[in-house]
């Protein structure tokens, strides 16, 4: 699954992320570089850095930890140059994010497709992500089947079918009906057709809507009925522009369906997705992919160091 590089001249996700973030970096009172240019770790630098981290949605708790970490590193290593301080800060953040760096391994059990269930709140970009994933897996030589499990939102099925057409992928859908049933059918269809990967879409829901959280828990149980080892991956799609509520989302969805991986979308805007640091601190889950653009190929694996560098570089 790691061999996703299909178009050689394409910019790496890091460059894209970097490009997206440049604009924001410039907005935060001069560039990050001038912040570090002081050449010593004093209160003013730490205060500016705190502002930078907080503005990146890193959250209060993780910011305090990161700043303390930098303070200690500065003391131990006697950092005196802007470059070394900046590098140390990148290290702090990269170390914090490191546990999240775990790419998705596609390993279908014999006689069964690899079933990936996708969940998230309304408007997080689930269906779009699903389309991108389908493209991604196809490019890596897997056969893919999409299950239109969002039977609630108007035209969600059509949106997925449009994606399916673009990617030349079969979409299993039903007129209205129960999402569990649609996905159950899709898993069976994939088994019968010997397809490698089933991508199951679900309707967006807020964690406060208890009946919908119960519904998605049921969807997960029904998937297990269709194939005892499934779902092999439960992806939670998080909108990169949202703030500290992301933590609550991870916790709530994890409780309902046992999240095994995260996808962070919309990182091509001016938002920086610093909430990942807060997630790393409070409820760590592997980040499987990050979405850095609208194009199909703009979904990329996550690298803690590249992310930290893009945020603080």
């Amino acid at each position, binding site marked *: 699954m790691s061999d996703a590089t299909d178009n050689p001249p394409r910019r790496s996700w890091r460059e894209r992320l970097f490009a997206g973030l440049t604009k924001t970096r410039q907005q935060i009172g001069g560039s990050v570089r001038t912040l570090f240019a002081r050449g010593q770790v004093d209160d003013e630098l730490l205060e500016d850095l705190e502002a930078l981290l907080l503005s990146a949605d890193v959250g209060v708790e993780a910011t305090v930890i990161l700043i303390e970490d930098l303070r200690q590193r500065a003391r131990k290593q006697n950092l005196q140059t802007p470059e070394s301080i900046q590098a140390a800060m990148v290290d702090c953040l990269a170390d914090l994010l490191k546990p999240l760096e775990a790419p998705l391994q596609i390993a279908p059990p014999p006689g069964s497709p690899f079933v990936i269930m996708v969940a998230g709140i309304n408007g997080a970009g689930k269906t779009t992500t699903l389309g991108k994933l389908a493209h991604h897996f196809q490019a890596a030589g897997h056969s893919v089947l999409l299950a239109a499990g969002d039977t609630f939102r*108007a035209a969600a099925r059509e*949106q997925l079918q449009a994606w399916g057409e673009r990617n030349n992928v079969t979409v299993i859908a039903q007129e209205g009906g129960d999402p569990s049933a649609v996905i159950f059918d899709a898993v069976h269809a994939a088994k019968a057709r010997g397809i490698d990967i089933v991508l199951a879409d679900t309707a967006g829901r807020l964690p406060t809507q208890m009946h919908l959280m119960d519904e998605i828990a049921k969807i997960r149980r029904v998937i297990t009925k269709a194939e005892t080892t499934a779902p092999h991956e439960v992806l939670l799609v998080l909108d990169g522009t949202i703030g500290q509520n992301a933590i609550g989302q991870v916790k709530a969805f994890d409780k309902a369906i046992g999240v095994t991986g995260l996808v962070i979308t919309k990182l091509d805007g001016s938002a920086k997705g610093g909430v990942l640091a807060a997630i790393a601190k409070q409820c760590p889950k592997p980040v499987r992919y990050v979405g850095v653009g609208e194009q199909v190929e703009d979904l990329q694996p996550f690298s803690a160091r590249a992310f930290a560098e893009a945020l603080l570089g």
Partner: protein
Amino acid sequence: MLENLTQRLGRVMKTMRGEARMTEANIGDALREVRMALLEADVSLPVVKDFVAQVKEKALGEGVVGSLTPGQAFVGVVHEQLKQLMGEAQVPLALNQQPPAIILMAGLQGAGKTTTVGKLARWLKQNQKKKVMVVSCDVYRPAAIDQLKHVAEQVGASFFPSSPDQKPLDIAAAAVDWARKHHEEVLIVDTAGRLAIDQAMMDEIKALHAQLDPIETLFVVDAMLGQDAVNTAKAFNETLPLTGVVLTKLDGDARGGAALSVRAVTGKPIKFVGVAEKLDGLEPFYPDRMASRILGMGDILSLVEAASQQVDMDQAAAMAQKIKSGKGFDLNDFRAQVAQMRQMGGMTALMDKLPAKFAEAAANMPAGSDDKMSRRIQGIIDSMTPDERTKPELIKASRKRRIATGAGVQVQEVNRLLNQFEQTQKMMKQFGSMFKGKGGMMKMMRGAKSMFGGKLPF
């Protein structure tokens, strides 16, 4: 999960207890807590900084009223500032225009624009009896037009068909033309979600706005939006002359700090909030509720309510009957008051709820709360004749001797009681004049209540 601001402040404010006003020294920690709480609620940092500075300015020198602890008074200042920042009143849609009144929707991807279009169409139909048409200029997202079509069907609005191979400007022109000819009163134009930094897309919506000249340009924003809310709002506000904001997904557990950021940056009123995916989930926006939500202030509300409930209004009314004005206050009333006070937990407890001015006066009051003491007072008064009780000035040396013997106490105790009575009578006169006589205590109680519940922003 998240601690609410009131609890956090409660801890900090313990040290502040007994201080009558807020000073630079004693609100420092509290301000820090406000900053943290706002950041955790996803209010953007620059907005938080300005806000904290304002709160500091307002809070300094502000007196602490009545039974409120300085902590509660401080939260009151914060709440008031929040409300002010968010606009005092609900701002309705301006639709008084030669039909069709055009409403243009703009926002990021996934903010909930299309759903909001449907909700708004329904709301306008139901509450304003408008004839509404909707049109989608989203030619980018697959099936976006279909989605709007479904939504329009559900709410019973007319739908102007468009297709992804058309240009947004052409669609808009055709829709306006059609709406005019067919006497649609309101035309809601849905647009594609766009990033604020996507210049081409921002230019497109600018052109769309110029062509449509809408009476309302609503910025649709996700209540969960993080720190980026300021940048996004600023960019949209600079590109488009926004007339209002719709805050969506407010039924999640996000604190909705984005509301504050967006409002602070654009200065535009938040007109609606979206809750639930069901199409009836759209409500006019009320600033004070949002202010409470951002602060996580449910607790202080109940606390203040409880404080005013303890001053039992029924008992207070009965007492007011007895007390009337200071002049008519006699020993019968005094006896009843002493008995009642025992029930209410003593005058001291009652006075705690009153403004500082009265609490001072209460310090001079007899210690009527002491059980033994009040029983003794009752005994002495019971030994008086009805005449003596209504006209205490009759009681001279020989009557005092008789009363003392009857109650089985020393004459000095009768003297002490009469002294206490006189003091109380004097205080009742004060109360009376303070609230212009007539139903004195009742009014005072009401006054006290408004001090806890009304005037303060809870």
